[in-house]
């Protein structure tokens, strides 16, 4: 099923929970709605599900406006954050409930439930009540219940947030594989950028009800459209430093009190129209800084070994930046070091608008 959100807005009194959101989701696509709490992602999902009526704009399923359609007529499956399993029904009854409402015969619905249960590896717990199974099993049951009526659209509302860290990594992969196998259009709501990055084909980043950027995970990571997306995507997050963009003898530089960095041609090409000097925010990811030699001086603040690599926090003047160093890196707090920024990987944002100057 194709989903199209056409200038969708949802207000609660004066609060604009969703503000003029336009988003097209292709058939079979897995899209994540990503943002911090209160960004409007859950409101968007509940509007797609039909629990909220849009204040303005349209929700279209396969090119048909469904604004007025109640949830039960939308042919959707949904997994809630709390799983929302019916506590008085057995696992089997929970899974077959949607078919029971459709008056499917008991035999047929049990056959279908057993097939799904074996796919999700919950066939041993069908007779139990939800309170008698673990959180991971509850989630599989919720997925089975959402999938049994073969909906055109699967909505996942923070489905992994109640699982422990280890199980989350497993379920993340399983849901992604299941989605690809079934080819069902899926919308995932999450505040966890790792979840969004790993699972979704495309991510829509929302903040205060507004769409900030939409694109494949790599695109959001490599070419963030603004400061918000740049800071939200990636762990540890991108480092930001206030600087001035200057042009000397035909070449562009970024200068701060502490250093002056010439920009390579690949970057310069994109900013040659910008009048200088110009106040900018320089963004650089922790993995794009190397410690050892270079023009920029820093002072070690703390070193955190992570096994695979080492996370180093250091001061440049009064600002703290984070650097990912090799696992063998050792230094003590207060030690002076030299740094190099990979100029190719530098991001530049307009200080006024927060918009990227490079996209």
């Amino acid at each position, binding site marked *: 099923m194709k989903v199209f959100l056409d200038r969708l807005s949802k207000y609660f009194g004066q609060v604009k929970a969703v503000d003029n959101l336009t988003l097209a989701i292709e058939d079979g696509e897995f899209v994540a709605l990503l943002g911090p709490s209160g960004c409007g992602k859950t409101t968007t999902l509940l509007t797609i*599900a039909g*629990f909220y009526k849009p204040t303005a704009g349209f929700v279209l399923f396969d090119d048909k406006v469904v604004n007025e359609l*109640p*949830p*039960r007529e*939308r042919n*959707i*499956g*949904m997994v*809630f*954050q*709390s799983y*929302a*399993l*019916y*506590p*008085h*029904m057995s696992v089997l009854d929970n899974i077959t*409930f*949607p078919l029971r*409402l*459709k008056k499917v015969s008991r035999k047929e619905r049990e056959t279908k439930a057993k097939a799904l249960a074996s796919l999700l590896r919950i066939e041993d717990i069908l007779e139990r*009540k939800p*309170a*008698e*199974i*673990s*959180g991971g099993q*509850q989630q599989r049951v919720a997925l089975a*219940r*959402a999938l049994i*009526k073969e909906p055109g659209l699967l909505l996942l509302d923070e489905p992994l947030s*109640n699982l422990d860290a280890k199980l989350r990594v497993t379920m993340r992969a399983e849901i992604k594989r299941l989605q690809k196998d079934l080819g069902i259009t899926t919308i995932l709501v999450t505040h966890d950028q790792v979840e969004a990055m790993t699972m979704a084909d495309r991510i829509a980043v929302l903040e205060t009800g507004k769409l900030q950027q939409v694109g494949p995970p790599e695109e959001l990571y490599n070419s963030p459209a603004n400061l918000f997306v740049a800071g939200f995507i990636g762990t540890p997050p991108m480092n930001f430093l206030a600087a001035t963009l200057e042009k000397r003898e035909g070449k562009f530089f970024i200068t701060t009190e502490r250093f002056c960095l010439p920009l390579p041609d690949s970057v310069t090409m994109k900013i040659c129209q910008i009048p200088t000097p110009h106040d900018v925010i320089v963004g650089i990811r922790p993995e794009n800084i190397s410690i050892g030699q270079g023009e920029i001086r820093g002072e070690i603040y703390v070193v955190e070994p992570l096994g695979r690599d080492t996370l180093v926090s250091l001061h440049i003047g009064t600002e703290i930046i984070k650097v990912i160093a090799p696992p063998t890196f050792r230094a003590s707090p207060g030690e002076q070091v030299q740094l190099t920024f990979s100029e190719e990987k530098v991001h530049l944002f307009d200080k006024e608008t927060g918009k990227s100057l490079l996209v």
Partner: protein
Amino acid sequence: MGPSVGLVLLFYFIPVILTFLIAFTDMGRTLIWRFIGLDNFARLFGVGSRDPLIPRILLNTIVYTLGALPLTIVGGLLIAVLSMRMRPSAGLFFRSVFFIPRAIPPVVWGFLWAWSFEGTRYGLFNAILAALGLPTVQWLIRYPMIIVILANGFLGISLAMLVFSAAIATIPQELTRAAEVDGASEGQVIRYVILPMLKWPILTMTAWHLMSFLNSYVYIMLITGGGPYYATEVWSLYAYHAAFTQYRYGYGASLVVLLVVVNVVLFLIILKAFGMQRMLTRGKIEV
């Protein structure tokens, strides 16, 4: 702890024990204890000098309880479910209206019913009938039992509705939403999700109101006084009349003791019917 134990003994155990003992006496207006063994109970069960009113009282009690109890539970459920599924402000209005019986003094509530169904043309309903040019009706003589059932039923509804509404409010919204996504209509959400989750409140209210209807006689006394000619005289009211208007304390106490036994037995039956054992022994795994 000492003084409080004394108070509990004084105000709870001693009256219970005394009532139990008095049931085996023929204590009357003179307050003289004279044990007569099981004579009072023999009278109740129609052995020897039987009480001819007992079958009538028993029937009244059963009719009254079987009338008021379902009215209370079904009515309370209906108002709770409907009011909780409509617009919040409208729901609050309906719950407030149905809570009125509990908010006004019993005497006023009883008087309202007595006045509304007053047999002269001054009664509310008769005034309406008269205004429409229809003949008036002797409501309290022709339909006394229905009237006391309604008066007590609406009082029961107010509490049951409140308890059921509170229970519905604790049902996570995600559950009813899940049912809607699964394809349930409004009626099916109520039937398959809300009602099953009200099992324990329904049990509590059924047990509570069963006891209440068996034991309380205040509104019947206020509206009909048990009449006309014992038509609404229920067991507890009969015990009251025996003890405090006819001053047959011994006989009144025996009526009450029997009522307590019936209460306990019925309570146990209800628990059994709702599978209390299962609730208490159900295993749970931490999520």
